[in-house]
């Protein structure tokens, strides 16, 4: 196995961790704000590591730019939507969970 393949495998494994954590958080965290916090990690780093892993495998800069564009779009949209949802939840009167 080439070194690039090894790095790719390592990065993909890392992304899996973030996606699993996001899903786990979505299912197990006690309230909306906590769940929101959990799933933005999947947006940012879960997808980010997949993109990075595939970038290492690519042999042309066009592919790299395409992957980067997809990741940046998800990043921007995800961050904004997370903000909007949290804001709306607050306006609707959701109280953050306390132990």
């Amino acid at each position, binding site marked *: 196995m080439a070194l690039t393949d090894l790095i790719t495998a390592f990065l*993909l494994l890392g992304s899996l961790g973030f996606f699993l954590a996001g899903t786990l958080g979505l299912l197990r965290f006690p309230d909306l704000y906590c769940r929101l916090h959990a799933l933005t990690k999947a947006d940012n780093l879960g997808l980010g590591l997949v993109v990075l892993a595939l970038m290492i*495998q690519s042999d042309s800069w066009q592919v790299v730019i395409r992957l980067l564009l*997809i990741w940046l779009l998800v990043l921007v949209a995800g961050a904004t939507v997370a903000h909007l949802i949290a804001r709306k939840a607050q306006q609707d009167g959701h109280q953050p969970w306390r132990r």
Partner: protein
Amino acid sequence: MTELYLGLALILLLTIAIGLVRILRGPTATDRMLAAQLFGTTAVAILLLLGQAAGNSAIWDVALIFALLTAVAAVTFVRRKDIDSTTETEEHDGTD
């Protein structure tokens, strides 16, 4: 490497299947919307992996369109005038 891509895509698909529980349980409309939002990102990752495994760039175009458009449904949800108050009244689910 193809096995690795497909294997990861498979596990990501499973996280979507398991995450469906959050859409089913809610309790608030916003919780359900959140789950759909996470599925959107996961689907983009799956499509990237499938595209790499198949060596087919058209699949990445599908991922690009998902990345570009998944925000629209969520923004519609946030900006909607009429919040269905009945689903919003149950404040918390008692997971503690």
